[in-house]
């Protein structure tokens, strides 16, 4: 009512803008969504969701920005703090590379955050601290525990995945929080960043009660600048939200290994997100031993796509949710996978590169970290970069570092070691190791456990202290030559990592996190000390004092008293003279 009255007095003099034709407005952002279902050798199935928003805009500080598909929270963050690339992953569980094969994108257990800043940022540490605090608010995760004691500056392992003009590694920060737990309250803000939310498209399958009932759950956010087109004159921003989940046979309860969308997610797909320009479901139906097909998919796919992924030729059944043929027969899409014949373990392909890490030694004083790296390629050798971040309270002795391959010492061609400073900085060890063909490399380093101050122990200190996963980055030679992929045309899972040439592909693996016990004091001691001291003081001092200061009085003999009469009764019974 009031606004109406005021409008009569308020006259906007400017003419309204020229009428625009409604249809065909040029859009500056695009959304593609994709789901990849790959059955794993052990009968489990891995589902990888990818939502990619591409925005042709310039996120400068201070410029007014108008957001449509790109979420405003992340856009303002990138603009305000001068971020060039941001990668945040929250993971629960561990990807078993040995049994499941190489993952499309792996993340270490817990929370991992690595960021490249723009060269215009003057104080990178201050921006890093603000960034981790703001992200901790956006994703409801305890990323505010990231501080200088778990942040490192790697020199060789984490090269930018997007466009980069120059790579001064002082603009890079990497931190991992192995103790972080992922749950529904982290999934909800992640889903809120999607343009269609969880109301339409592939995101309707993301229901928390099924997603967390799995052996591996990893959700990640990747922001990076990319070329706008082939000539690469202008820069666009790309936001990828990925979610990988592995459903395994045992936790789902049934003995049969047949899978379907309904069995995995307790939902089916009904339509595509109206804002997406592409919405597809890929199912990996590659024959394992190159003879006959292993898997049968119903309903029949709209098309079949072949690609060379991670060095192997793979075949995918494609369901295009935007094509009108798909929902002709039924209102919902429930992709079902049936095994045609039972599998035997001899068919399990072993990945070319996998690794293991464990703690050796005994007692609470010293120990040893051992990493085993396997290269199962029959005749090609390739180098791998190993990055280890060890907290300061495990004091590493670098002179005990040994790298042994096939019984002989294998000297790394590049070592970058930054020792820790107590309570300020962790250890950083980066090595470039050449792995000969068909070999196992064992890397050991000894450490000593430190005694912490009593206020520095976390609650439940006897649980142990976590050491974050180590990172292995390698260019693995591929069996089949790979063509250069056009990012816009090919499926999203092939364009995650930039490929330099066709003969090898980039792989980043993480080892297990370690749980190490430190010498833990008994926290009930202050209470015990107070009790003991007070008892000693009360008893000894009190009686001493009494002895010294007692005065003696003469007492009249008293006539009786209860004790004397009782004693007389007993004496009478015994026949002894009375008192």
């Amino acid at each position, binding site marked *: 009512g009031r*606004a109406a009255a005021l409008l009569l007095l*308020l006259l906007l003099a*400017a003419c309204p*803008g020229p009428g625009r034709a409604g249809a065909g407005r040029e859009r500056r952002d695009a959304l593609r969504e994709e789901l990849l279902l790959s059955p794993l050798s052990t009968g489990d199935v891995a589902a990888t969701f990818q939502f990619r928003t591409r925005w042709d805009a310039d996120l400068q500080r201070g410029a007014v920005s108008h957001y449509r598909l790109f979420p405003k929270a992340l856009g303002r963050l990138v603009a305000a703090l001068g971020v060039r690339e941001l990668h945040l992953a929250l993971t629960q569980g561990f990807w078993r590379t040995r049994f499941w094969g190489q993952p499309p994108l792996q993340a270490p257990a817990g929370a991992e955050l690595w960021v490249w800043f723009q060269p215009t940022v003057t104080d990178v540490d201050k921006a890093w601290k603000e960034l981790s605090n703001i992200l901790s608010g956006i994703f409801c995760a305890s990323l505010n525990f990231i501080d200088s004691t778990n942040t490192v500056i790697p020199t060789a392992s984490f090269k930018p995945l997007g466009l980069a003009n120059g790579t001064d590694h002082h603009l890079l920060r990497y931190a991992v929080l192995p103790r972080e737990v992922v749950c529904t309250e982290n999934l909800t803000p992640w889903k809120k960043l999607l343009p269609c939310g969880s109301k339409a498209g592939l995101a309707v399958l993301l229901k928390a009660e099924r997603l967390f009932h799995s052996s591996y759950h990893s959700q990640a956010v990747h922001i990076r600048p990319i070329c706008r087109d082939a000539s690469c004159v202008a820069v666009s921003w790309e936001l990828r939200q990925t979610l990988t989940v592995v459903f395994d046979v045992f936790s789902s309860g049934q003995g049969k290994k047949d899978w379907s969308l309904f069995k995995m997610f307790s939902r089916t797909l009904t339509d595509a997100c109206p804002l997406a320009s592409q919405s597809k479901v890929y199912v990996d139906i590659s024959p394992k031993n190159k003879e006959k097909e292993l898997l049968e998919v119903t309903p029949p796919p709209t098309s079949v796509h072949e690609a060379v992924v991670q060095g192997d030729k793979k075949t995918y059944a494609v369901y295009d949710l935007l094509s009108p043929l798909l929902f002709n027969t039924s209102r919902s899409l429930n992709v079902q996978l049936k095994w045609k014949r039972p599998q035997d373990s001899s068919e399990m392909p072993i990945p070319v590169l996998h690794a293991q890490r464990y703690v050796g030694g005994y007692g609470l004083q010293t120990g040893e970290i051992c990493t085993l790296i396997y290269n199962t390629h029959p005749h090609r050798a390739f180098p791998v970069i190993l990055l280890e971040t060890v907290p300061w309270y495990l004091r590493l002795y670098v002179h005990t570092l040994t790298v042994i391959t096939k019984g002989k010492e294998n000297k790394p061609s590049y070592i970058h070691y930054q020792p820790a400073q107590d309570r300020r900085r962790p250890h950083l060890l980066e090595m470039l190791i050449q792995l000969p063909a068909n070999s196992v490399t064992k890397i050991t380093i000894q450490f000593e456990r430190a005694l912490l101050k009593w206020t520095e122990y976390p609650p439940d200190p006897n649980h142990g202290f976590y050491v974050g996963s180590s990172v292995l980055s390698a260019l693995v030679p591929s069996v089949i030559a790979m063509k250069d992929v056009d990012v816009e045309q090919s499926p999203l899972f092939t364009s995650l990592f930039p490929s330099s040439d066709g003969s090898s592909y980039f792989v980043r693996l993480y080892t297990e996190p370690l749980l190490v016990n430190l010498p833990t004091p008994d926290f009930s001691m202050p209470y015990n000390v107070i009790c003991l001291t*007070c008892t000693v003081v009360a008893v000894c001092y009190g009686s001493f004092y009494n002895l010294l200061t007692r005065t003696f009085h003469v007492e009249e003999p008293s006539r009786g008293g209860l004790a004397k009469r009782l004693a007389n009764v007993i004496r009478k019974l015994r026949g002894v003279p009375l008192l």
Partner: protein
Amino acid sequence: EADAALRPLQDVSMGSLTMYVVPETSSLLPQGTSVYVGKHRSALVRAGGSLPALHARLRQVTQVMSFTATSIAAALSDRVPDGRLSPDARRSLKSSLGYEITFSLLNPDPKSHAVDWDIEGAVNRYVKPVLDKLSLVANFSVDSQILYYAILGVTPRYDKESSSFLLSAHSLPHVINPVEARLGSSAASLYPVLNFLLYVPERSHSPLYIQDKDGAPVSTNAFHSPRWGGIMVYNVEAPASPQASLPLHVDVDMARVMEVFLAQLRLLFGLSREELPPEFLLESPGNEGLADWELDHLLWAHTVENIATVSTTLTSLAQLLDKIGNIVIKDDVASEVYRAVASVQSAVAELAMGHLHSAFQASKEAVTSSERAFFDPSLLHLLYFPDDQKFAIYIPLFLPMAVPILLSLAKIVRETRQRKKEPTKMD
């Protein structure tokens, strides 16, 4: 036109008003109006019959163009007891160094409506001139976003007579909460946010009208919430043929939308033109959205509020120090406090002299310094043990030791008293 011609003759300092008295029979002012208020701090007043009438009229003009007791009370609204305020007094935003304005388009049904709005052009054309005028008061930053599948939390009622959906006035407060979860908090800055939402109802709930308290549909189809922002409902006409292909392309008429939002922005800043007597004629401020004297009014209100905030902050800091004697005040915190006090004193002095601009700057500095002093993280460290921990450690040790000593002291006192009595007895 006369106003524009007279402008170069005036003394254009902030906070001052010039009034020109025109004879009763002059034809400069149209019939029926006795006061013409310009947009640049001047007014033309028609002389009444007598001097007291002229006085009264001049006083009225001063009250409209400058501040009154009620407007000062409104500026201090948080500190004045409830009974003395008018209900509109708490509508305006608290004074702050900057504001963020976010325009959001809510489209709950992207399958039926493909909505486009030229927000960038509209912001440049309509909003920027207003914000440029207001840039003296605070820093502004403008953002916009489009949210899909964002629904209002309230189901509208279907009205058969008008064959439309209605949102009643008492269900409006429930609309904001569910929407706010999707709006996203501004994590990257500390300024308060003003949200302006444009809601395009779903195909199944179109057309949607807002009812005011009397049951009539609101003509602008919009409402605002004090200290938060405003919401406008934009209805899309049904397609001509029922078989039209979905989604419908909708181009939002930004002029109509921005009219409403800018009016709401003025209301949120407390610039309303409600209480005008009928013979007043106001010149419209045109593209800039507000007249110079309205800007002065805003500056007065903000200056007074800043001074009140500073005094409250410093008083609470002093009271805190009285209660907890252990807190150590560092030198830079002390210098901030001194600077705040000096700025407040200079602001008050400047206000008394009528220099509005310098008073406002001084009050802003005072607020910054006092906030920096009060929220300094070094104040939070308690550098010594609190008193009850000291008791908890020392009492279990010293109490058992003290008890025998106290007992023997009591015995000694008793014995001396007895000995004093006995010599008197024996004697």
